[in-house]
């Protein structure tokens, strides 16, 4: 029994090592004084200072974050409204058809979506750049949001809506005071998912960036093709730390929400004991 337990641990360690070693390898060499990723010759912050003085790179990072924030925000709004609309469809056949259309967008390869956007934008004569990237990011984020919000809606007890109406709520009040608070966890999850999808998307963005506008993933790809620069490593390390902080922050936010109730309860019991 004990032996099997240690095998399980070993397996877990192996899997995580496999997943994280390349990243740590990258981060490790971001501190390398020698300009290569093969021989570690000494510690330096040089690549980081280089990165921060690279105004083009800073601009790209800001653009990428702006795209991610804007596209996920808009996608969350559109996707939530879409989920509400799908939810209100009565006929199961129609509902399933719409859901399937939504899911197809989720599973179809990014390359195809990217290429189709490119064709679409050029057909319309739409100038490629910030606008086209933003629009396409919104487009591929919407199905994700729908998928995160819809289960919450399905979970909701229909009589809550009746109850709110019964107490005098208008349609808008029913939405803002009952439905929205109820589906909020799904909406937030959808927003975070859309944000990360937008942040790390390469394939779709690659097709629709055009000249003069780059996002991080496209820029890194371009630089990696030109040859190794440890500035990329430094950037990757910072991105890794950033996403780590995001995940940890999200975890604590969740923890705070779920424990608010229990802590309140404990406090109540504590006062009762006294």
């Amino acid at each position: 029994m004990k032996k099997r337990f240690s095998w399980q641990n070993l397996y877990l360690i192996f899997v995580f090592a496999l997943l994280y070693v390349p990243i740590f390898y990258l981060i490790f060499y971001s501190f390398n004084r020698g300009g290569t990723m093969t021989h570690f010759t000494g510690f330096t912050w040089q690549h980081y200072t280089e990165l921060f003085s690279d105004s083009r790179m800073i601009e790209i990072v800001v653009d990428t974050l702006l795209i991610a924030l804007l596209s996920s925000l808009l996608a969350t709004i559109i996707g939530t409204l879409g989920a509400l609309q799908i939810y209100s469809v009565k006929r199961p056949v129609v509902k399933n058809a719409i859901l399937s259309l939504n899911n197809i967008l989720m599973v179809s390869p990014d390359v195809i979506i990217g290429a189709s956007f490119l064709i679409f934008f050029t057909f319309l004569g739409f100038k490629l750049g910030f606008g086209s990237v933003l629009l396409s990011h919104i487009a591929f984020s919407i199905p994700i949001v729908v998928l995160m919000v819809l289960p919450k809606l399905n979970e909701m007890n229909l009589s809550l809506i009746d109850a709110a109406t019964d107490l005098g709520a208008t349609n808008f009040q029913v939405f803002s005071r009952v439905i929205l608070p109820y589906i909020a966890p799904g909406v937030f999850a959808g927003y975070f998912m859309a944000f990360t999808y937008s942040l790390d998307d390469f394939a779709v963005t690659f097709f629709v960036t055009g000249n003069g506008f780059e996002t991080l993933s496209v820029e890194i790809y371009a630089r990696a093709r030109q040859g190794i620069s440890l500035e990329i490593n430094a950037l990757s390390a910072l991105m890794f730390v950033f996403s780590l902080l995001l995940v940890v922050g999200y975890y604590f936010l969740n923890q705070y929400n779920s424990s608010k109730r229990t802590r309140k309860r404990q406090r109540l019991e504590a006062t009762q004991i006294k």
Partner: protein
Amino acid sequence: MANTIISFEAVDKRYGDTIALNDINFELEQGKFYTLLGPSGCGKTTILRILAGFTSATSGEIKFKGQKINNLPANKRKVNTVFQDYALFPHLNVFDNVAFGLSLRKVPKAEIRQRVLEALRLVQLTGYDDREIAELSGGQQQRVAIARAIVNEPEVLLLDEPLSALDAKLRTAMQVELRQLQRRLGITFLFVTHDQGEALAMSDEIFVMNNGKILQQGNPVDIYDEPINHFVADFIGESNIVKGKMVKDYLVSFVGKEFECADAGMRPDEPVEIVLRPEDLVLTDVTKGKLTVTVDTQVFRGNIYEIMSHDSANNQWLIHAVHKATIGQKVGISFGPEDVHVMRFGESEEEFDARLETYEGEEE
């Protein structure tokens, strides 16, 4: 009928081809406790939903204080509902749940606070105002749901089987509390249930429903003592129902014998059904009894013995006796003329009332 607050006039409700409600007519007076009683699927909840405004009637008129309200949206109606599953808002605590209706109407904060605490006091939940809904037991959630409805001071409170999810003991306690609450508030309650005991215990007036129709309306005693047909007799309380024949006024024949009864106004030799309540049947000696039966089974219920027996024609007789009998023994059962209740086939409530008036007038 000066105090009529709600009336249904020839209300029909159809879902496609299925008829949910068929020609519903009734009036509710101010300050009374009404119950819609019937098996599940009989349309009682549909009536409630039409009254609350969640669904609309296919035809007919719903009036509130004489005003037609068919097209008035639910959020504008002066009725509030207590839902079967309570439908409390999980993201709000007890106070905010109860305050929901008032805060929508932009009532001043101080007044909201005072009225919410008062409502919570009425349902005996003082001190629970900052609890979360998930922390409450079923009975407490039930009370919050009631407080949330009554805090808006509705003129009619609709209750959709609100006690069905509670355990038996709590349910009995809540029945008494609800009845007291209704008296204290003085508003009209329309209570929906499939539990006949609940209906008899709480109501001023009961509407017995089946298949989308109101079969009988009356106070609990009338409905129990004078059920209009087989369904009502069978649904309300326990009963022995046998086929018989009306020989003449005040004389009916069943199981091959003739008995005195208190009913009249029917055709001679008209086929009828006879109801005898088990608690009206008294066990005696075979010689003294009006009927002779053989005891089959006997169950001790604490306050009574529930005895199943059969007569020579194989009719089942259920008897509630104070003293116990011996299984397999022949016993006599006796009953008075008042205990024999005669039901005609296919008689409507109006015909029933009219017939009752003709001969009850004679007696005086």
